[in-house]
């Protein structure tokens, strides 16, 4: 048991040190060939194992593609001719709904078909046709050579159109990707009052563009991976090269490369594959729909992981305290932000232990309840047939049922469920003497509290831990509750997110980082990046240097 729990931490440390040693030996060819830097992809030569050369005979080639894909109905094969030295036959292949028909028509078919030999200064031989039209005829940004069948098929599936020319052993992959995607909307799970209102979408391209538009830095790096043996899902990591720790980047890359799975549909799946510790209720990644949150974290030296097909972007490494911070904290005045952060943290504590405290107080420590309140609770308990723990469990589970029902049920019946939930289960249960009104209040405050935490991920961990804590405090009272909380804190301290202590900056204590933890100091004081994250580039642009300069000028 012990060994198993310790393993990830040791592993991480070992890896980091190993990497340090290997750093200089690292040669680029050892990187998996699948990785394509999107920046340089047009130049990079893709070296895939040679499966089948392309046949220069067009109809043979088309038949083979059809065969490979199982003659799909949405594969469009457009044959046409154009004129160079003499007539050349060409075929354009694409999957219908994944391409933009307008681009296909206007920038590929139209210019090619209007080519004629008269315009040429010198005749072009047929086997140079491909090169020639790439250089002269295709008014498109992304045009790549295709040399193998596998590449061709992959390109088709990724939404490229493929141009094959009779007599050429190469093809052209054309970036005509299109089709319908969801537009940029307001974030649904992270609503703020003040702050940007756009959010990520399912398309990785849109998401990267949302980030790029906001960070006009040459140091921003976007690296692409393809994960999923079946789905071939695009995954990209984003970081700022001059800030992020290279060891961290390597570790993340390595872990992502190690993922072997059929398909990757959501960032939650990747999260489970690459997290440090599996046996825990606490999230080790921050997930967000908001581009500004990602950028804020990039500026601190963290890394964003974008997965195609989901608007939720992962941020690693994550610290516990981050789950209580909202991007709005930095847009509002520091005093109110500090207040709100403290509030959110206490709200987490409430949603974690409120029912346990109620149970412990009423069954063990009646002496701690103020006398008048004790009379009130005792009067309410009068005639309730169940012990406090049963009462609490019934109410909490009822609430969980209501909540789950509220998420899953169709909108149309929503009103009915809330009426049944609020009236029948709340009021009627009290009137029938099944539960005491105080218990309803406790469950109510717990429920409301759990929704006030900005991160849903950490709210769910409080939700899960609540039940064991309730059981423990019904058996051991505050003594048990305290022990359980100690265990939870010990567990939190043992957690690592990519080797970074989960409870930092509290444990280990990092005084400089404390300024932006439970408190938020005025933004002028926050000129240090998190200590462990950005070893290379600790200091942010300092507001003081500008101020000082000005002062000097005026004194002169």
């Amino acid at each position, binding site marked *: 048991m012990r060994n198993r729990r310790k393993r990830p931490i040791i592993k991480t440390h070992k890896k980091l040190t190993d990497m340090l040693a290997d750093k200089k030996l690292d040669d680029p060819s050892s990187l998996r060939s699948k990785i394509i830097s999107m920046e340089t992809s047009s130049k990079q030569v893709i070296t895939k194992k040679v499966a089948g050369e392309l046949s220069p005979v067009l109809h043979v080639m088309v038949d083979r593609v059809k065969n490979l894909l199982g003659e799909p109905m949405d594969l469009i094969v457009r044959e046409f001719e154009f004129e160079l030295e003499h007539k050349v036959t060409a075929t354009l292949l694409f999957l219908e709904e994944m391409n933009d028909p307008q681009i296909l028509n206007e920038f590929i078919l139209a210019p090619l078909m209007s080519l004629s030999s008269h315009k040429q200064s010198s005749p072009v031989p047929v086997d140079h046709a491909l090169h020639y039209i790439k250089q002269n005829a295709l008014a498109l940004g992304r045009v790549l050579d295709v040399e193998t069948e596998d590449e061709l098929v992959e390109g088709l599936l990724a939404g490229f159109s493929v141009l094959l020319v009779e007599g050429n052993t190469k093809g052209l992959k054309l970036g005509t990707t299109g089709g319908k995607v969801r537009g940029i909307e307001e974030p649904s799970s992270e609503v703020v009052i003040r702050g940007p209102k756009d959010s990520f979408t399912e398309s990785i391209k849109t998401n990267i563009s949302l980030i790029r538009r906001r960070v006009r830095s040459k140091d921003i790096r976007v690296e692409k991976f393809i994960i999923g043996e079946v789905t071939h899902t695009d995954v990209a990591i984003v970081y700022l090269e001059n800030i992020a720790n290279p060891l961290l980047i390597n570790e993340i890359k390595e872990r992502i490369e190690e993922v072997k799975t059929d398909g990757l549909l959501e960032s939650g799946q990747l999260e489970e594959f690459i997290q440090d510790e599996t046996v825990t209720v606490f999230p080790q990644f921050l997930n967000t729909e908001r581009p500004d949150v990602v950028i804020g974290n990039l500026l601190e030296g963290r890394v964003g992981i974008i997965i195609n097909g989901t608007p939720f972007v992962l941020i690693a490494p994550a610290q516990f305290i981050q789950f209580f911070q909202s991007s709005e904290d930095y847009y509002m005045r520091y005093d109110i932000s500090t207040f709100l952060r403290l509030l959110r943290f206490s709200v987490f504590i409430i949603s974690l232990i409120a029912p346990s405290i109620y149970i412990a107080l*009423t069954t063990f420590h009646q002496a701690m309840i103020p*006398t008048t309140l*004790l009379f*009130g609770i005792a009067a309410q308990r009068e*005639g309730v047939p169940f012990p406090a723990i049963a009462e609490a469990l019934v109410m909490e589970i009822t609430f969980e049922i209501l909540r789950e029902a509220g998420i899953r049920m169709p909108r149309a019946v929503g009103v009915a469920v809330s009426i049944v939930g609020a009236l029948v289960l709340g009021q009627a249960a009290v009137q029938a003497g099944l539960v005491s009104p105080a218990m309803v209040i406790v469950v109510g405050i717990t429920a409301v509290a759990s929704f006030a935490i900005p991160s849903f991920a950490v709210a769910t961990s409080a939700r899960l831990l609540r039940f064991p804590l309730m059981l423990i405090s019904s058996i051991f009272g505050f003594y048990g509750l305290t022990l359980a909380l100690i265990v939870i804190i010990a567990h939190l301290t043992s957690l690592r997110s990519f080797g970074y202590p989960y409870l930092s900056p509290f444990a280990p204590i990092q005084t400089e980082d404390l300024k932006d933890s439970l408190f938020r100091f005025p933004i002028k004081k926050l000129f240090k990046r998190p200590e462990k994250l950005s070893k290379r580039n600790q200091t942010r642009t300092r507001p003081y240097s500008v101020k000082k300069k000005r002062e000097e000028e005026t004194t002169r």
Partner: protein
Amino acid sequence: MKLLKSCLSFSICLLFLTGCWDQNELDELSIVMGIGINIDKKGDLIVTYQVVNPTEVAPGITGAGGGKQPVFTVYETKGRNLMEATRKASKQTSRRLFFAHARMLVFSEKIAKDSIYQAVDMISRDPEVRSTIQVVVARGTTPSKLLRTFTAIDKVTSDEVATILKISEKNWGENMQQDINEVLQSIIDEGGEPIINGIKITGDKKLAVTAQNYEVGDPARVQLSGMGVFRDGKLKGWLDGPEARGVLWIKGKLVSSAITVPCMGNDNGYSIEIVRSNTELSADTKGKIPSLAIEVFPEANIAEANCAVNLEKPSEIFKIEKKLNGVIEKEIENTITAAQDFNSDVLGFGELLYRENPKKWRNEYKQHYKEIFPQLKVEVNVDSRIRRSGIRTSPFLFEEKKKKEAP
């Protein structure tokens, strides 16, 4: 398999290690608010418990009975000692008696005269009973009657008494809160003796123990009545009125009070409101009989002036201060004389001497303290300051006098 084994052993451990031994659901508890202790002729303790009926006390909750039931019930048991009597109570109660919220411990005068030592140990030893439980002596009545008295405002008698004590200490200063801790401390202190508040029932005593007491406009009430002076755990007598206030002056516990000072022929002319006070004690242990000095520094306001005095003149204020000093000095001296007459050091002089000169206390004074205490010379010095005179300066009587003299 390994997991199953560890789970099994864990759950077997739980059977033996359960912490449920002090688990009690709230509806299995009887909340005791007051404890009364009396003694019968055979020497057995009669213990009375005042237990609340929460459905009647709780705000906004009306139980099945709907306001028909009494607010509290009283159980009474006998036993050779306190624990025996307490456990015997289970013969009458359907629920476990729960003492943590008890606010009042009443001794009867009978047991107080016999000795309170036989009844305080369990109260201070039991972890459930709070050390803030107020100790009182039922004066001219018995604990069982007192605990059966229905009081009008705070419905539970014990609650009412404890609150009265708190309010009265702050506003009048003839009684001070004495919880079980303070009582024990004063017993343990060198040469010290406890002083315990007295409480009596006023009005129709027969009506007091019926619920009808709620319904009449002038019900029987509980009322604080002096402080009982003990010697060797036995009640020796009572300090009443200003003599009782003297105790608070000396102990420096007086928060606020009103003191009557004569004014231009009117004996009850001024009423001086004390707002805060400081007391300094010092001892001189040179002689065979030690001497003590008490210095009191009260700050006061003029609350009432029923004579034609010109308060705009500072000299008048100084005059008042001087008179006030005299009155307070007299009060304190009376208290000391009374305590010396009882030969009971409720004022904590012994502890003072011990702290001043521990060696001499141990070697000389301690053995003969019973003889020394009545002979102690105490010098009392009061230095009061009058700060304010309310929202007017001179009384209307002075203005009237001026008007008469003017034409």
